[in-house]
């Protein structure tokens, strides 16, 4: 396998683990099965039937949820007759004065980056699913979407809501706003989306 490997045709049948550099001959796993690196257990290929359509549907849903959750209040607090509620935009702009830069970062992590990532994903996947040629700049778009991954923190913010709730529940009366439930759904969807996503399959379908 090694000797003839410089042959271009042969190289197409190989896959390298991005985490440990081990090379394998590609064996397309059956749907719902996964190909895993034998020594570092990184998932290499995890195809799902109709994953593309499901991913698009989920991306659209999450996108709508983020927009809606940004404007509706997610927690409401009351004590001694005074009430206040807070939306995601309120939370992001809680930092002022010398901390204003943090407001932009928080807004980026929980709204802008997740939305951008989802929109890029939709842009890349729609032509693929419809068996059209790849969208212009699709490869750069998907590469960028992938690199945004770790900085998309909507689900972490959702868990932060739960922590904040516990922290102040004995100081004041706290109620959930509509956005809280949207965010709860969003967390589940983001986790499912991650398991559906097979990078190898996407790259393969973007190949010309």
């Amino acid at each position: 396998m090694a000797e003839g490997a410089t042959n271009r045709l042969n190289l197409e049948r190989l896959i390298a683990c991005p985490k440990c550099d081990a090379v394998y001959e590609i064996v397309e796993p059956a749907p719902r099965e996964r190909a895993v690196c034998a020594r570092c257990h990184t998932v290499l290929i995890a195809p799902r039937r109709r994953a593309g359509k499901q991913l698009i549907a989920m991306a659209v849903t999450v996108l709508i949820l983020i927009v809606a959750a940004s404007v509706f209040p997610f927690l409401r607090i009351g004590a001694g007759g005074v009430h206040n509620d807070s939306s995601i935009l309120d939370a992001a702009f809680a930092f002022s004065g010398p901390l204003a830069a943090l407001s932009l970062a928080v807004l980026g992590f929980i709204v802008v980056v997740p939305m951008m990532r989802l929109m890029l994903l939709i842009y890349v996947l729609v032509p693929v699913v419809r068996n059209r040629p790849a969208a212009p700049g699709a490869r750069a778009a998907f590469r960028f979407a992938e690199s945004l991954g770790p900085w998309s923190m909507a689900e972490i913010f959702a868990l932060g809501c739960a922590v904040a709730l516990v922290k102040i529940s004995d100081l004041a009366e706290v109620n959930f706003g509509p956005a809280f439930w949207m965010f709860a759904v969003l967390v589940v969807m983001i986790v499912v989306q991650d398991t559906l996503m097979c990078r190898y399959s996407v790259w393969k379908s973007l190949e010309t």
Partner: protein
Amino acid sequence: MEVAGDIRTAREMGLVACTRCTRVWPAGTEACARCGQHLASRDTTSLQRVWAWWIVGLICYIPANIYPMLETRTLFIRQDNTIVGGAVELAQHGNWAIAGVILAASVLIPIGKFIAVAGLAIGVTRGARLSRERRHQLYEVVEYIGRWSMIDVFVVAILSSLVQLHALASITPGRASLFFALSVIFTMLSAQSFDSRLIWDADRAERRKGRGADA
């Protein structure tokens, strides 16, 4: 995926692998023709960048613990809480569980991350006692857990936007929140800079040395 005998790396086969789309190319290829990613068999500046981000991250972690994270004003008192101070106070009020969670999330995990990343980087240059499988697991855990530390900053944002009850009670974010966020960002960048393929290389070189000594 079927493996026959010894696993061979792309480098050993005279190939270079794309870390983004897993395609392999002949060694010396500049960019991946499938996804456009810049190709390098090993990221030679990896450890330098790991240490650079690690150091700034650690520097930011110090003021993050000295300055107050939250400033709480109620009718009678005005109180500044550092990360540890807040947890200690919760514990004094009997909220041991929450105090424990906060200490774990904002103290144990960040410090553990610094130690783990440093350990991985030192392991590559000087050899390590842990097996490569263990070190790879450690790397995966650090990469996965890194972003979750940002939860503290989000909690501060939520609390200070929510608890605005005029004179009754109000919470404003303290300076530590900025440093804490920076520290999280820098340690994430540090972990991302680490080329995990180095873990496996170093070990391979050692084994060869070992085999040579036996013979």
